[in-house]
Protein backbone atom coordinates (compact mmCIF):
# COMPACT_ATOMS: atom_id res chain seq x y z
CA UNK A 1 0.00 0.00 0.00
CA UNK A 2 2.76 2.36 0.99
CA UNK A 3 4.63 1.49 -2.20
CA UNK A 4 1.51 2.29 -4.23
CA UNK A 5 1.04 5.58 -2.45
CA UNK A 6 4.69 6.58 -2.96
CA UNK A 7 4.48 5.74 -6.67
CA UNK A 8 1.40 7.93 -7.08
CA UNK A 9 2.98 10.73 -5.07
CA UNK A 10 6.19 10.53 -7.11
CA UNK A 11 4.33 10.60 -10.43
CA UNK A 12 2.20 13.53 -9.31
CA UNK A 13 5.36 15.38 -8.25
CA UNK A 14 7.05 14.49 -11.53
CA UNK A 15 4.09 15.80 -13.51
CA UNK A 16 4.29 18.98 -11.50
CA UNK A 17 7.70 19.71 -13.00
CA UNK A 18 6.17 20.55 -16.43
CA UNK A 19 3.25 22.90 -16.93
CA UNK A 20 0.40 20.75 -18.26
CA UNK A 21 -1.28 23.82 -19.73
CA UNK A 22 1.47 23.75 -22.33
CA UNK A 23 1.36 20.06 -23.13
CA UNK A 24 0.78 19.24 -26.80
CA UNK A 25 -2.80 18.15 -26.16
CA UNK A 26 -3.65 21.31 -24.28
CA UNK A 27 -1.83 23.54 -26.75
CA UNK A 28 -3.91 22.00 -29.52
CA UNK A 29 -7.12 22.52 -27.58
CA UNK A 30 -6.16 26.13 -26.92
CA UNK A 31 -5.12 26.70 -30.54
CA UNK A 32 -8.45 25.27 -31.75
CA UNK A 33 -10.22 27.69 -29.42
CA UNK A 34 -8.18 30.65 -30.69
CA UNK A 35 -8.81 29.59 -34.30
CA UNK A 36 -12.56 29.53 -33.71
CA UNK A 37 -12.33 32.90 -31.94
CA UNK A 38 -10.74 34.19 -35.18
CA UNK A 39 -7.56 35.08 -33.29
CA UNK A 40 -5.60 33.67 -36.21
CA UNK A 41 -2.05 34.84 -35.49
CA UNK A 42 -2.09 33.39 -31.98
CA UNK A 43 -3.77 30.21 -33.24
CA UNK A 44 -1.08 29.76 -35.89
CA UNK A 45 1.70 30.30 -33.37
CA UNK A 46 0.15 27.82 -30.93
CA UNK A 47 -0.18 25.19 -33.66
CA UNK A 48 3.39 25.85 -34.75
CA UNK A 49 4.68 25.23 -31.23
CA UNK A 50 3.28 21.68 -31.23
CA UNK A 51 5.88 18.96 -31.60
CA UNK A 52 6.47 17.87 -35.22
CA UNK A 53 4.78 14.52 -34.76
CA UNK A 54 1.51 16.24 -33.85
CA UNK A 55 1.40 18.34 -37.01
CA UNK A 56 -1.33 16.54 -38.92
CA UNK A 57 -2.54 17.72 -42.33
CA UNK A 58 -5.55 19.33 -40.65
CA UNK A 59 -3.28 21.38 -38.41
CA UNK A 60 -0.99 22.31 -41.29
CA UNK A 61 -4.05 23.39 -43.26
CA UNK A 62 -5.35 25.46 -40.34
CA UNK A 63 -1.96 27.15 -39.91
CA UNK A 64 -1.90 27.94 -43.64
CA UNK A 65 -5.46 29.21 -43.49
CA UNK A 66 -4.67 31.39 -40.44
CA UNK A 67 -1.68 32.97 -42.15
CA UNK A 68 -3.66 33.39 -45.36
CA UNK A 69 -6.43 35.26 -43.52
CA UNK A 70 -4.01 37.64 -41.80
CA UNK A 71 -2.23 38.28 -45.10
CA UNK A 72 1.06 36.49 -44.43
CA UNK A 73 0.95 34.80 -47.82
CA UNK A 74 4.52 33.45 -47.84
CA UNK A 75 3.97 31.46 -44.66
CA UNK A 76 0.50 30.42 -45.81
CA UNK A 77 1.88 29.02 -49.09
CA UNK A 78 4.61 27.24 -47.18
CA UNK A 79 2.08 25.39 -45.03
CA UNK A 80 -0.43 24.69 -47.81
CA UNK A 81 2.33 23.18 -49.94
CA UNK A 82 3.47 20.91 -47.11
CA UNK A 83 0.18 19.00 -47.04
CA UNK A 84 0.53 15.34 -48.02
CA UNK A 85 -0.48 14.38 -51.56
CA UNK A 86 -2.87 11.70 -50.28
CA UNK A 87 -4.64 14.07 -47.88
CA UNK A 88 -8.33 14.83 -48.25
CA UNK A 89 -7.40 18.49 -47.66
CA UNK A 90 -5.07 18.62 -50.65
CA UNK A 91 -7.74 19.89 -53.06
CA UNK A 92 -8.64 22.74 -50.72
CA UNK A 93 -5.00 23.54 -50.05
CA UNK A 94 -4.28 23.82 -53.79
CA UNK A 95 -7.30 26.09 -54.23
CA UNK A 96 -6.14 28.21 -51.30
CA UNK A 97 -2.75 28.52 -52.99
CA UNK A 98 -4.50 29.53 -56.23
CA UNK A 99 -6.49 32.16 -54.32
CA UNK A 100 -3.23 33.61 -52.95
CA UNK A 101 -1.66 33.66 -56.43
CA UNK A 102 -4.81 35.35 -57.78
CA UNK A 103 -4.67 38.04 -55.08
CA UNK A 104 -0.91 38.60 -55.38
CA UNK A 105 -1.23 38.49 -59.21
CA UNK A 106 1.43 35.79 -59.50
CA UNK A 107 0.64 34.69 -63.04
CA UNK A 108 3.49 32.17 -63.33
CA UNK A 109 2.62 30.23 -60.16
CA UNK A 110 -1.11 30.23 -60.90
CA UNK A 111 -0.53 28.85 -64.40
CA UNK A 112 1.84 26.26 -63.00
CA UNK A 113 -0.77 25.02 -60.52
CA UNK A 114 -3.52 24.86 -63.17
CA UNK A 115 -1.40 23.21 -65.85
CA UNK A 116 0.95 21.01 -63.80
CA UNK A 117 -0.45 20.27 -60.35
CA UNK A 118 -4.12 19.59 -60.97
CA UNK A 119 -5.07 19.75 -64.63
CA UNK A 120 -8.55 18.32 -64.07
CA UNK A 121 -9.76 20.84 -61.51
CA UNK A 122 -12.65 22.94 -62.82
CA UNK A 123 -12.38 25.30 -59.84
CA UNK A 124 -8.75 26.06 -60.65
CA UNK A 125 -9.70 26.86 -64.24
CA UNK A 126 -12.39 29.23 -63.00
CA UNK A 127 -9.85 31.05 -60.83
CA UNK A 128 -7.51 31.24 -63.83
CA UNK A 129 -10.27 32.76 -66.01
CA UNK A 130 -11.05 35.28 -63.25
CA UNK A 131 -7.33 36.08 -63.06
CA UNK A 132 -7.11 36.77 -66.81
CA UNK A 133 -10.22 38.97 -66.56
CA UNK A 134 -8.74 40.84 -63.60
CA UNK A 135 -5.40 41.46 -65.32
CA UNK A 136 -7.09 42.12 -68.68
CA UNK A 137 -5.20 39.31 -70.43
CA UNK A 138 -8.20 38.41 -72.57
CA UNK A 139 -6.14 36.69 -75.29
CA UNK A 140 -5.29 33.99 -72.77
CA UNK A 141 -8.95 33.18 -72.18
CA UNK A 142 -9.26 30.54 -74.87
CA UNK A 143 -12.23 28.34 -75.55
CA UNK A 144 -10.62 25.49 -73.63
CA UNK A 145 -11.23 27.37 -70.42
CA UNK A 146 -14.92 27.82 -71.26
CA UNK A 147 -15.48 24.13 -71.97
CA UNK A 148 -17.74 23.62 -68.97
CA UNK A 149 -21.10 25.23 -68.70
CA UNK A 150 -22.20 25.63 -65.10
CA UNK A 151 -23.63 28.80 -63.48
CA UNK A 152 -20.20 30.12 -62.54
CA UNK A 153 -18.87 29.77 -66.09
CA UNK A 154 -21.97 31.57 -67.41
CA UNK A 155 -21.29 34.43 -65.00
CA UNK A 156 -17.61 34.47 -65.98
CA UNK A 157 -18.61 34.60 -69.67
CA UNK A 158 -20.72 37.69 -68.91
CA UNK A 159 -17.71 39.25 -67.16
CA UNK A 160 -15.59 38.31 -70.19
CA UNK A 161 -17.98 40.14 -72.53
CA UNK A 162 -17.98 43.18 -70.22
CA UNK A 163 -14.19 43.23 -70.19
CA UNK A 164 -13.96 42.69 -73.97
CA UNK A 165 -16.47 45.41 -74.84
CA UNK A 166 -16.18 48.00 -72.08
CA UNK A 167 -18.50 51.00 -72.23
CA UNK A 168 -15.58 53.44 -72.44
CA UNK A 169 -16.05 57.05 -73.56
CA UNK A 170 -13.58 58.54 -76.05
CA UNK A 171 -11.47 61.35 -74.61
CA UNK A 172 -11.07 62.88 -78.09
CA UNK A 173 -14.81 62.89 -78.77
CA UNK A 174 -15.46 64.45 -75.34
CA UNK A 175 -12.91 67.22 -76.02
CA UNK A 176 -14.15 67.90 -79.59
CA UNK A 177 -17.80 67.98 -78.50
CA UNK A 178 -17.00 70.53 -75.80
CA UNK A 179 -15.02 72.60 -78.29
CA UNK A 180 -18.07 72.74 -80.59
CA UNK A 181 -20.79 73.13 -77.94
CA UNK A 182 -19.47 73.96 -74.46
CA UNK A 183 -20.65 71.39 -71.93
CA UNK A 184 -21.66 68.75 -74.50
CA UNK A 185 -18.48 66.74 -73.81
CA UNK A 186 -19.45 66.50 -70.18
CA UNK A 187 -22.97 65.44 -71.10
CA UNK A 188 -21.43 62.78 -73.38
CA UNK A 189 -19.53 61.44 -70.35
CA UNK A 190 -22.81 61.38 -68.41
CA UNK A 191 -21.77 64.31 -66.24
CA UNK A 192 -25.05 66.14 -66.87
CA UNK A 193 -24.98 68.75 -64.08
CA UNK A 194 -21.49 69.99 -64.98
CA UNK A 195 -22.36 69.97 -68.68
CA UNK A 196 -25.44 72.17 -68.31
CA UNK A 197 -23.64 74.54 -65.89
CA UNK A 198 -20.66 74.90 -68.26
CA UNK A 199 -22.99 75.57 -71.20
CA UNK A 200 -24.93 78.28 -69.35
CA UNK A 201 -21.86 79.99 -67.83
CA UNK A 202 -19.83 80.03 -71.03
CA UNK A 203 -22.91 81.30 -72.87
CA UNK A 204 -23.59 84.08 -70.36
CA UNK A 205 -19.97 85.28 -70.21
CA UNK A 206 -19.66 85.18 -74.01
CA UNK A 207 -22.85 87.17 -74.44
CA UNK A 208 -21.74 89.72 -71.85
CA UNK A 209 -18.33 90.05 -73.53
CA UNK A 210 -19.99 90.58 -76.91
CA UNK A 211 -22.51 93.06 -75.51
CA UNK A 212 -19.87 95.06 -73.64
CA UNK A 213 -17.66 95.25 -76.73
CA UNK A 214 -20.70 96.42 -78.73
CA UNK A 215 -21.28 99.21 -76.23
CA UNK A 216 -18.07 100.95 -75.30
CA UNK A 217 -17.40 99.24 -71.93
CA UNK A 218 -13.91 98.01 -72.69
CA UNK A 219 -12.81 96.91 -69.20
CA UNK A 220 -15.88 94.79 -68.54
CA UNK A 221 -15.72 93.45 -72.10
CA UNK A 222 -12.18 92.20 -71.60
CA UNK A 223 -13.03 90.88 -68.16
CA UNK A 224 -16.00 88.86 -69.43
CA UNK A 225 -13.99 87.72 -72.48
CA UNK A 226 -11.32 86.41 -70.14
CA UNK A 227 -13.89 84.63 -68.03
CA UNK A 228 -15.63 83.18 -71.08
CA UNK A 229 -12.32 81.98 -72.54
CA UNK A 230 -11.35 80.47 -69.20
CA UNK A 231 -14.63 78.61 -68.91
CA UNK A 232 -14.49 77.50 -72.55
CA UNK A 233 -10.94 76.12 -72.38
CA UNK A 234 -11.44 74.76 -68.89
CA UNK A 235 -14.52 72.95 -70.08
CA UNK A 236 -12.66 71.28 -72.95
CA UNK A 237 -9.93 70.13 -70.57
CA UNK A 238 -12.58 69.13 -68.02
CA UNK A 239 -14.45 67.04 -70.60
CA UNK A 240 -11.29 65.09 -71.49
CA UNK A 241 -10.63 64.55 -67.77
CA UNK A 242 -14.26 63.56 -67.30
CA UNK A 243 -13.90 60.88 -70.00
CA UNK A 244 -10.77 59.56 -68.27
CA UNK A 245 -12.59 59.44 -64.95
CA UNK A 246 -15.56 57.71 -66.58
CA UNK A 247 -13.27 55.03 -68.07
CA UNK A 248 -11.46 54.54 -64.77
CA UNK A 249 -14.88 54.10 -63.14
CA UNK A 250 -15.82 51.45 -65.71
CA UNK A 251 -12.65 49.49 -64.86
CA UNK A 252 -13.14 50.02 -61.14
CA UNK A 253 -16.74 48.83 -61.24
CA UNK A 254 -15.76 45.80 -63.28
CA UNK A 255 -13.05 44.75 -60.82
CA UNK A 256 -15.36 45.48 -57.92
CA UNK A 257 -18.11 43.29 -59.35
CA UNK A 258 -15.64 40.53 -60.21
CA UNK A 259 -14.21 40.57 -56.67
CA UNK A 260 -17.71 40.55 -55.20
CA UNK A 261 -18.61 37.56 -57.35
CA UNK A 262 -15.47 35.68 -56.31
CA UNK A 263 -16.04 36.48 -52.66
CA UNK A 264 -19.64 35.32 -52.87
CA UNK A 265 -18.32 32.07 -54.34
CA UNK A 266 -15.44 31.96 -51.82
CA UNK A 267 -13.03 31.67 -54.78
CA UNK A 268 -14.75 28.35 -55.65
CA UNK A 269 -13.40 26.78 -52.45
CA UNK A 270 -15.68 24.59 -50.37
CA UNK A 271 -14.88 26.01 -46.96
CA UNK A 272 -14.37 23.46 -44.20
CA UNK A 273 -15.94 24.45 -40.90
CA UNK A 274 -13.54 23.40 -38.16
CA UNK A 275 -15.58 25.11 -35.46
CA UNK A 276 -18.81 23.13 -35.51
Amino acid at each position, binding site marked *: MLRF*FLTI*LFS*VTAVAQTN*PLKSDENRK*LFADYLYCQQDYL*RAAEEYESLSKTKLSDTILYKIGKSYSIIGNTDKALNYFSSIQSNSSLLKNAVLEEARIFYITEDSYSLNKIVNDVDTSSIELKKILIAFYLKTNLLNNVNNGLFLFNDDDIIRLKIFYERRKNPTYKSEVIAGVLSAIIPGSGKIYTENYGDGITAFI*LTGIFSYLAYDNFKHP*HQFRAYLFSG*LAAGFYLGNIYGSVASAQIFNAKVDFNFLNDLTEFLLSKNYFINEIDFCK
Partner: protein
Amino acid sequence: MRLIFVNRLLFIILLLQIKILSQNYFVEQLEVADSLFKSQNYFDAITEYKRLLFFDSSNQFRFYSNYQIGLCYKNGAKYSDAIRYFVLAEINSTNNEELFESKIQQARTNILRRTTTRAEKILSEMENDKRFDQHKTEIKYWRGWSFIFSDKWEDAHHIFSEIGETNLAQICLSTHDKLYSIDFAKYSSMIIPGLGQFYTGEYLSGLLSLAWNVFSGYLTITAFNQERIFDGVVTANLLWFRFYRGNFQNAEKFAEEKNIRIANETLFYLQNEFNGIKP
Protein backbone atom coordinates in the same frame (compact mmCIF):
# COMPACT_ATOMS: atom_id res chain seq x y z
CA MET B 1 -9.42 -0.31 11.73
CA ARG B 2 -6.40 1.89 12.23
CA LEU B 3 -5.00 0.89 8.84
CA ILE B 4 -8.23 1.91 7.08
CA PHE B 5 -8.08 5.29 8.75
CA VAL B 6 -4.46 5.80 7.67
CA ASN B 7 -5.34 4.78 4.11
CA ARG B 8 -8.18 7.24 3.98
CA LEU B 9 -5.99 9.98 5.39
CA LEU B 10 -3.32 9.29 2.79
CA PHE B 11 -5.92 9.31 0.04
CA ILE B 12 -7.26 12.69 1.15
CA ILE B 13 -3.72 14.09 1.34
CA LEU B 14 -3.10 12.83 -2.19
CA LEU B 15 -6.29 14.42 -3.50
CA LEU B 16 -5.45 17.68 -1.83
CA GLN B 17 -2.00 17.63 -3.34
CA ILE B 18 -3.44 17.08 -6.82
CA LYS B 19 -5.85 19.96 -6.23
CA ILE B 20 -3.05 22.22 -4.94
CA LEU B 21 -0.88 21.28 -7.90
CA SER B 22 -3.53 22.27 -10.41
CA GLN B 23 -3.95 25.58 -8.55
CA ASN B 24 -0.20 26.03 -8.71
CA TYR B 25 -0.23 25.63 -12.48
CA PHE B 26 -2.72 28.46 -12.78
CA VAL B 27 -0.72 30.65 -10.43
CA GLU B 28 2.42 29.80 -12.37
CA GLN B 29 0.61 30.62 -15.63
CA LEU B 30 -0.53 33.92 -14.14
CA GLU B 31 3.03 34.76 -13.12
CA VAL B 32 4.26 34.06 -16.67
CA ALA B 33 1.55 36.31 -18.11
CA ASP B 34 2.23 39.04 -15.57
CA SER B 35 5.97 39.00 -16.23
CA LEU B 36 5.30 39.35 -19.99
CA PHE B 37 2.95 42.23 -19.20
CA LYS B 38 5.58 43.90 -17.04
CA SER B 39 8.18 43.58 -19.78
CA GLN B 40 5.65 45.24 -22.15
CA ASN B 41 5.47 42.14 -24.34
CA TYR B 42 1.75 42.67 -24.71
CA PHE B 43 1.10 40.28 -27.60
CA ASP B 44 2.50 37.29 -25.71
CA ALA B 45 0.96 38.48 -22.45
CA ILE B 46 -2.49 38.41 -24.09
CA THR B 47 -1.81 34.85 -25.32
CA GLU B 48 -0.90 33.70 -21.81
CA TYR B 49 -3.86 35.44 -20.15
CA LYS B 50 -6.14 33.91 -22.76
CA ARG B 51 -4.62 30.50 -22.05
CA LEU B 52 -5.33 31.00 -18.38
CA LEU B 53 -8.91 32.01 -19.15
CA PHE B 54 -9.37 28.98 -21.38
CA PHE B 55 -8.18 26.42 -18.83
CA ASP B 56 -9.38 28.07 -15.62
CA SER B 57 -12.68 26.25 -15.23
CA SER B 58 -13.06 27.58 -11.68
CA ASN B 59 -13.32 31.12 -13.08
CA GLN B 60 -11.00 32.23 -10.30
CA PHE B 61 -8.90 34.42 -12.62
CA ARG B 62 -11.68 35.52 -14.93
CA PHE B 63 -11.87 39.16 -13.82
CA TYR B 64 -8.12 39.66 -13.51
CA SER B 65 -7.26 38.01 -16.86
CA ASN B 66 -9.90 39.94 -18.78
CA TYR B 67 -8.80 43.16 -17.10
CA GLN B 68 -5.15 42.53 -17.92
CA ILE B 69 -5.98 41.63 -21.54
CA GLY B 70 -7.88 44.93 -21.72
CA LEU B 71 -4.80 46.77 -20.44
CA CYS B 72 -2.59 44.98 -22.98
CA TYR B 73 -4.85 45.97 -25.86
CA LYS B 74 -5.08 49.50 -24.50
CA ASN B 75 -1.30 49.79 -24.30
CA GLY B 76 -1.10 48.48 -27.86
CA ALA B 77 -3.60 51.18 -28.95
CA LYS B 78 -6.22 48.54 -29.85
CA TYR B 79 -8.89 50.50 -28.07
CA SER B 80 -12.00 48.68 -29.32
CA ASP B 81 -10.56 45.31 -28.29
CA ALA B 82 -9.51 46.83 -24.95
CA ILE B 83 -13.03 48.05 -24.25
CA ARG B 84 -14.44 44.61 -25.11
CA TYR B 85 -12.22 42.98 -22.48
CA PHE B 86 -12.88 45.67 -19.87
CA VAL B 87 -16.59 44.96 -20.35
CA LEU B 88 -15.88 41.25 -19.84
CA ALA B 89 -13.93 42.17 -16.71
CA GLU B 90 -16.91 44.23 -15.52
CA ILE B 91 -19.23 41.26 -16.07
CA ASN B 92 -16.90 39.01 -14.07
CA SER B 93 -16.15 41.46 -11.27
CA THR B 94 -16.78 40.11 -7.80
CA ASN B 95 -16.72 43.28 -5.71
CA ASN B 96 -17.27 47.03 -6.04
CA GLU B 97 -13.58 47.81 -6.40
CA GLU B 98 -13.22 45.47 -9.39
CA LEU B 99 -16.42 46.87 -10.87
CA PHE B 100 -15.11 50.41 -10.45
CA GLU B 101 -11.72 49.63 -11.98
CA SER B 102 -13.21 47.92 -15.04
CA LYS B 103 -15.72 50.71 -15.63
CA ILE B 104 -13.21 53.51 -15.16
CA GLN B 105 -10.88 51.78 -17.63
CA GLN B 106 -13.75 51.68 -20.15
CA ALA B 107 -14.18 55.43 -19.70
CA ARG B 108 -10.43 56.08 -19.98
CA THR B 109 -10.14 53.97 -23.12
CA ASN B 110 -13.12 55.75 -24.67
CA ILE B 111 -11.36 59.05 -23.93
CA LEU B 112 -8.26 57.82 -25.73
CA ARG B 113 -10.39 56.54 -28.61
CA ARG B 114 -11.94 60.01 -28.73
CA THR B 115 -15.42 58.57 -28.24
CA THR B 116 -15.81 61.08 -25.45
CA THR B 117 -19.62 61.06 -25.53
CA ARG B 118 -19.53 57.40 -24.55
CA ALA B 119 -16.88 58.13 -21.89
CA GLU B 120 -19.01 60.88 -20.41
CA LYS B 121 -22.05 58.60 -20.37
CA ILE B 122 -20.11 55.94 -18.45
CA LEU B 123 -18.76 58.57 -16.04
CA SER B 124 -22.26 59.97 -15.47
CA GLU B 125 -23.58 56.48 -14.70
CA MET B 126 -20.75 55.99 -12.22
CA GLU B 127 -21.33 59.37 -10.63
CA ASN B 128 -24.97 58.50 -10.00
CA ASP B 129 -24.08 55.08 -8.60
CA LYS B 130 -24.03 55.05 -4.79
CA ARG B 131 -21.49 52.21 -4.76
CA PHE B 132 -18.86 54.60 -6.10
CA ASP B 133 -19.48 57.49 -3.71
CA GLN B 134 -15.94 57.34 -2.33
CA HIS B 135 -14.55 57.68 -5.90
CA LYS B 136 -16.34 60.92 -6.84
CA THR B 137 -13.08 62.89 -7.14
CA GLU B 138 -11.52 60.31 -9.44
CA ILE B 139 -14.64 60.22 -11.62
CA LYS B 140 -14.52 64.00 -11.91
CA TYR B 141 -10.82 63.83 -12.76
CA TRP B 142 -11.54 61.59 -15.75
CA ARG B 143 -14.49 63.73 -16.74
CA GLY B 144 -12.00 66.60 -16.93
CA TRP B 145 -9.82 64.56 -19.26
CA SER B 146 -12.87 63.71 -21.33
CA PHE B 147 -13.53 67.47 -21.70
CA ILE B 148 -9.92 67.97 -22.76
CA PHE B 149 -10.25 65.38 -25.52
CA SER B 150 -13.53 66.88 -26.71
CA ASP B 151 -11.99 70.38 -26.86
CA LYS B 152 -14.10 71.72 -23.98
CA TRP B 153 -11.14 73.43 -22.33
CA GLU B 154 -13.16 75.82 -20.19
CA ASP B 155 -15.31 72.98 -18.77
CA ALA B 156 -12.13 71.02 -18.11
CA HIS B 157 -10.65 74.02 -16.27
CA HIS B 158 -13.76 74.28 -14.04
CA ILE B 159 -13.85 70.61 -13.13
CA PHE B 160 -10.10 70.43 -12.39
CA SER B 161 -10.36 73.58 -10.24
CA GLU B 162 -13.27 71.98 -8.38
CA ILE B 163 -11.23 68.92 -7.39
CA GLY B 164 -8.04 70.86 -6.65
CA GLU B 165 -6.02 69.80 -9.70
CA THR B 166 -4.56 73.28 -10.05
CA ASN B 167 -1.83 72.39 -12.54
CA LEU B 168 -4.23 70.78 -15.02
CA ALA B 169 -6.78 73.53 -14.41
CA GLN B 170 -4.14 76.16 -15.27
CA ILE B 171 -3.09 74.31 -18.44
CA CYS B 172 -6.72 74.08 -19.59
CA LEU B 173 -7.37 77.74 -18.84
CA SER B 174 -4.29 78.94 -20.70
CA THR B 175 -5.24 76.75 -23.69
CA HIS B 176 -8.78 78.12 -23.61
CA ASP B 177 -7.43 81.69 -23.57
CA LYS B 178 -5.24 80.99 -26.59
CA LEU B 179 -8.11 79.64 -28.70
CA TYR B 180 -9.59 81.77 -31.48
CA SER B 181 -13.33 82.41 -31.61
CA ILE B 182 -14.57 80.70 -34.76
CA ASP B 183 -17.78 82.71 -34.70
CA PHE B 184 -15.92 86.00 -34.38
CA ALA B 185 -13.61 85.11 -37.28
CA LYS B 186 -16.60 84.22 -39.46
CA TYR B 187 -18.93 87.10 -38.62
CA SER B 188 -16.23 89.77 -38.59
CA SER B 189 -15.32 88.70 -42.12
CA MET B 190 -18.96 89.04 -43.07
CA ILE B 191 -18.91 92.66 -41.90
CA ILE B 192 -15.46 93.64 -43.23
CA PRO B 193 -14.02 91.11 -45.70
CA GLY B 194 -10.58 89.96 -44.58
CA LEU B 195 -11.03 90.98 -40.92
CA GLY B 196 -11.43 87.35 -39.75
CA GLN B 197 -8.20 86.44 -41.51
CA PHE B 198 -6.42 89.37 -39.81
CA TYR B 199 -7.81 88.17 -36.45
CA THR B 200 -6.29 84.71 -37.00
CA GLY B 201 -2.96 86.22 -38.08
CA GLU B 202 -3.32 85.42 -41.79
CA TYR B 203 -2.57 88.94 -43.02
CA LEU B 204 -1.80 88.22 -46.68
CA SER B 205 -4.94 86.16 -47.09
CA GLY B 206 -6.92 88.94 -45.37
CA LEU B 207 -5.53 91.59 -47.74
CA LEU B 208 -6.28 89.43 -50.80
CA SER B 209 -9.79 88.77 -49.58
CA LEU B 210 -10.39 92.46 -49.03
CA ALA B 211 -8.96 93.35 -52.46
CA TRP B 212 -11.03 90.79 -54.37
CA ASN B 213 -14.21 91.87 -52.60
CA VAL B 214 -13.54 95.58 -53.20
CA PHE B 215 -12.74 94.90 -56.87
CA SER B 216 -15.78 92.69 -57.57
CA GLY B 217 -18.02 95.00 -55.53
CA TYR B 218 -16.77 97.98 -57.52
CA LEU B 219 -17.53 96.16 -60.80
CA THR B 220 -21.01 95.29 -59.64
CA ILE B 221 -21.86 98.78 -58.44
CA THR B 222 -20.43 100.39 -61.59
CA ALA B 223 -22.53 98.09 -63.77
CA PHE B 224 -25.70 99.02 -61.87
CA ASN B 225 -24.77 102.73 -62.00
CA GLN B 226 -24.42 102.49 -65.75
CA GLU B 227 -27.86 100.84 -65.83
CA ARG B 228 -26.43 97.59 -67.13
CA ILE B 229 -28.58 95.51 -64.84
CA PHE B 230 -27.80 92.08 -66.34
CA ASP B 231 -24.04 92.81 -66.14
CA GLY B 232 -24.52 93.82 -62.52
CA VAL B 233 -26.53 90.73 -61.59
CA VAL B 234 -24.03 88.36 -63.23
CA THR B 235 -21.02 90.12 -61.71
CA ALA B 236 -22.64 90.16 -58.28
CA ASN B 237 -23.64 86.49 -58.38
CA LEU B 238 -20.67 84.96 -60.11
CA LEU B 239 -17.88 87.20 -58.83
CA TRP B 240 -18.71 89.29 -55.80
CA PHE B 241 -20.83 86.77 -53.87
CA ARG B 242 -18.35 84.03 -54.71
CA PHE B 243 -15.47 86.05 -53.22
CA TYR B 244 -17.62 87.23 -50.32
CA ARG B 245 -18.70 83.71 -49.41
CA GLY B 246 -15.17 82.36 -49.87
CA ASN B 247 -13.88 85.14 -47.63
CA PHE B 248 -15.86 84.26 -44.51
CA GLN B 249 -15.62 80.50 -45.08
CA ASN B 250 -11.86 80.96 -45.32
CA ALA B 251 -11.75 82.95 -42.07
CA GLU B 252 -13.76 80.22 -40.31
CA LYS B 253 -11.41 77.54 -41.66
CA PHE B 254 -8.31 79.45 -40.48
CA ALA B 255 -9.74 79.77 -36.96
CA GLU B 256 -10.57 76.05 -36.84
CA GLU B 257 -7.10 75.07 -38.07
CA LYS B 258 -5.36 77.34 -35.58
CA ASN B 259 -7.49 75.96 -32.74
CA ILE B 260 -6.61 72.39 -33.69
CA ARG B 261 -2.93 73.37 -33.66
CA ILE B 262 -3.24 75.01 -30.23
CA ALA B 263 -5.12 72.00 -28.81
CA ASN B 264 -2.57 69.59 -30.27
CA GLU B 265 0.30 71.55 -28.73
CA THR B 266 -1.34 71.21 -25.31
CA LEU B 267 -2.09 67.51 -25.84
CA PHE B 268 1.54 67.00 -26.93
CA TYR B 269 2.68 68.75 -23.76
CA LEU B 270 0.33 66.66 -21.60
CA GLN B 271 1.54 63.47 -23.27
CA ASN B 272 5.24 64.17 -22.87
CA GLU B 273 5.70 66.59 -20.00
CA PHE B 274 2.76 66.10 -17.66
CA ASN B 275 3.61 63.75 -14.80
CA GLY B 276 0.14 63.03 -13.38
CA ILE B 277 -2.13 60.12 -14.26
CA LYS B 278 -3.22 60.15 -17.90
CA PRO B 279 -6.01 58.19 -19.65
